[in-house]
């Protein structure tokens, strides 16, 4: 009787894609090792009933050498072997390396079904594997699949009940590799292919000079594309909807309302020159939806589209190799670039994915740097919204300040925290070209995740702010902080409320700063302070959850210190 099905395999062989196919549960997959940092589970209906399917983090061996591998292996050993099946997912393009784990699984007495995934890609590369022969030698069912298109998944499900425990002599790793060499020799035929353009690009992207050139081009075009796509969505879709449809509708509906009343203040906010101004009115029905759907969402869509493309092509690990030198000085290694890049979308998934880093020290440094120095999409939309009118120099200035903070803070943390930055050891995936449908699906789930997380907070946030303003309760808070903000940062008292609200969500703060009529310098300082000071409440909680209260407090103390130093410095230095 099968009670549990585990998906196990080397990193980046498509476990999560197979998992989604089997259970219908959508999880994010990418073309680099370590996308799955948690444990996902779902259900699959077999003849005897529903069985739980568990997607485990990738591992090279049953003798774990990293935390993620430990998690995978200990979970696997939790359940009685005769009540489970392990679906061993194998990358057909790299059979040899994958077979070590397979042999270990069989030797340990796990009932195994082998899923020869990425079969199409292997064929394309001239690799042919005979599944019948392989199954015969190993004595386990072998099913060729292409999970991304769904080919072979049905036969994989049919073969699950055929998995059985078999006894096999235990070998040393050295002996296993010899055996694997023989097996591969028998079942695999290689068709000789000339170097393809893809392979040339793969190599060029990890060589020093050509690699840095490519990285420059890729990052620059990614940034340009995100802006272009985001602006196009705003100009062609969201702004017309807000200004030509939604505003007239709101104005008609509220014609008879008294402009000074509580409900008008709460829902519509202040009229600017007798009209609703989506950026400044600050009402639950005006500024709140405009900020989320009209300013942030277009960039969320364009950012995640470009990021997903880079992820699925397999470019990010190459960037990690190129940046390893720099990141080592910050106490991290190259792979930390992946959580950081994710943080540019939203800090929360960025900090979650620091789980790919080995030590707690690295995770603390990376999480602190992300929450202080990496601006998320809402924050960036805010920076552009506040400073765009004054020219690109101001916007670039904020990025420059943030980048310098990351470098300086990283170097300080690296020398101040005892420990070392572990060495880099990473498999680099081949370039792959993801089907559009896969990209669109991933984009859809990420955007949906963002909306679920952000929209309620923004609506409630704007509501709370309006109530506080209406009953003049902000005066107490502002009175307390006024000396610091006024004397050190040169900002008016009214900006305090915005900075405080920035803790809730950065994007709400923009609606509060806009109407204050600040000078360019004051806006610049506010934008920088909003970026580095407290992360939004969601980031705050995720650091707490992932790293513990002590790390959160340390991280927060660093943030407050840096905010005060940078705010005062900017106030002194800029004229």
């Amino acid at each position, binding site marked *: 009787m099968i009670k549990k099905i585990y998906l196990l395999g080397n990193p980046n062989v498509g476990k999560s894609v197979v998992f989604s196919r089997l259970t219908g549960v959508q999880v994010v997959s990418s073309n680099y090792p370590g996308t799955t940092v948690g444990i996902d589970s779902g259900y699959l209906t077999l003849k005897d009933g529903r069985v739980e399917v568990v997607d485990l983090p990738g591992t090279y061996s049953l003798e774990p050498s990293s935390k993620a591998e430990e998690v995978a292996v200990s979970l696997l050993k939790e359940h009685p072997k005769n009540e489970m099946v392990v679906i061993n997912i194998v990358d057909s393009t790299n059979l*040899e390396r994958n077979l070590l784990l397979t042999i270990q699984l069989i030797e340990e007495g796990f009932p195994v079904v082998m899923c020869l995934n990425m079969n199409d890609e292997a064929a394309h590369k001239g690799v042919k594997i005979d599944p019948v022969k392989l199954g015969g030698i190993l004595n386990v069912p072998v099913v060729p699949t292409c999970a991304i298109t769904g080919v072979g998944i049905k036969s994989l499900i049919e073969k699950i009940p055929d998995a059985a425990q078999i006894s096999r002599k235990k070998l040393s*790793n050295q002996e296993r590799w010899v055996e694997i060499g023989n097996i591969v020799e028998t079942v695999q035929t290689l068709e000789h292919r000339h170097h393809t353009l893809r392979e040339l690009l793969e190599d060029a992207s990890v060589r020093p000079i050509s690699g840095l050139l490519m990285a420059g081009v890729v990052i620059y075009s990614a940034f340009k594309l995100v802006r272009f796509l985001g602006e196009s969505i705003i100009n062609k879709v969201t702004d017309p909807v807000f200004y030509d449809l939604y505003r007239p509708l709101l104005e008609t509906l509220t014609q008879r309302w008294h402009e000074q009343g509580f409900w008008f203040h709460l829902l519509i906010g202040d009229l600017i020159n007798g009209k609703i101004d989506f950026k400044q009115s600050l009402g639950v029905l005006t500024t709140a939806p405009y900020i989320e759907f009209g300013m942030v969402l277009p960039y969320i869509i364009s950012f995640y589209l470009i990021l997903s493309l880079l992820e699925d092509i397999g470019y990010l690990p190459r960037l990690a190799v190129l940046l390893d030198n720099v990141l080592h000085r910050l106490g991290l290694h190259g792979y930390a670039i992946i959580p950081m890049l994710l943080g540019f979308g939203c800090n929360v998934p960025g900090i979650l994915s620091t789980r790919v880093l080995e030590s707690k020290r690295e995770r603390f440094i990376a999480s602190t740097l992300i929450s202080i120095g990496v601006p998320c999409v809402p924050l960036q939309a805010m920076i552009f919204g506040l400073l765009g009118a004054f020219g690109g120099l101001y916007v670039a200035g904020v990025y420059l300040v943030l980048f310098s903070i990351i470098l300086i803070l990283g170097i300080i943390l690296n020398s101040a925290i005892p420990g070392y930055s572990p060495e880099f050891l990473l498999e*680099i995936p081949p370039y792959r070209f993801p089907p559009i449908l896969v990209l669109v699906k991933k984009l859809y789930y990420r955007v949906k995740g963002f909306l679920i997380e952000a929209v309620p907070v923004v609506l409630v946030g704007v509501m709370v702010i309006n109530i506080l303003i209406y009953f003049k309760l902000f005066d107490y808070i502002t009175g307390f902080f006024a000396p610091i903000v006024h004397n050190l940062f040169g900002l008016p008292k009214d900006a305090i409320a915005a900075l405080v609200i920035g803790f809730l969500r950065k994007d709400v703060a923009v609606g509060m700063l806009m109407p204050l009529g600040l000078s360019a310098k004051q806006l610049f300082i506010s934008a920088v302070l909003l970026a580095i000071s407290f992360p939004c409440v969601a980031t705050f909680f995720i650091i707490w959850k992932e790293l513990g209260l002590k790390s959160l407090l340390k991280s927060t103390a660093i943030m407050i210190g840096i905010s005060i130093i940078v705010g005062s410095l900017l106030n002194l230095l800029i004229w």
Partner: protein
Amino acid sequence: MKKISLAQLKSNHKGKIVEILGGSNLAAKLESMGLYEGKEIAKVSHIGLRGPVVIKAGRSILALGHGVAAKVIVSSE
């Protein structure tokens, strides 16, 4: 034939792994990724002076931090 570390091997040169220095932990980890004694590899590149080393082993491309690369000894012509 001379024995040198992966960090010293020149880019675009081939070598055969003869020894992995350092703890058994590192050796086990490399072994499970397919870098075992006797395996033939080719070095693709070396980023900067003390940066990571990229190699091809079988059908895998692997990046090793400088410290790791210095512990993998290969024999090369």
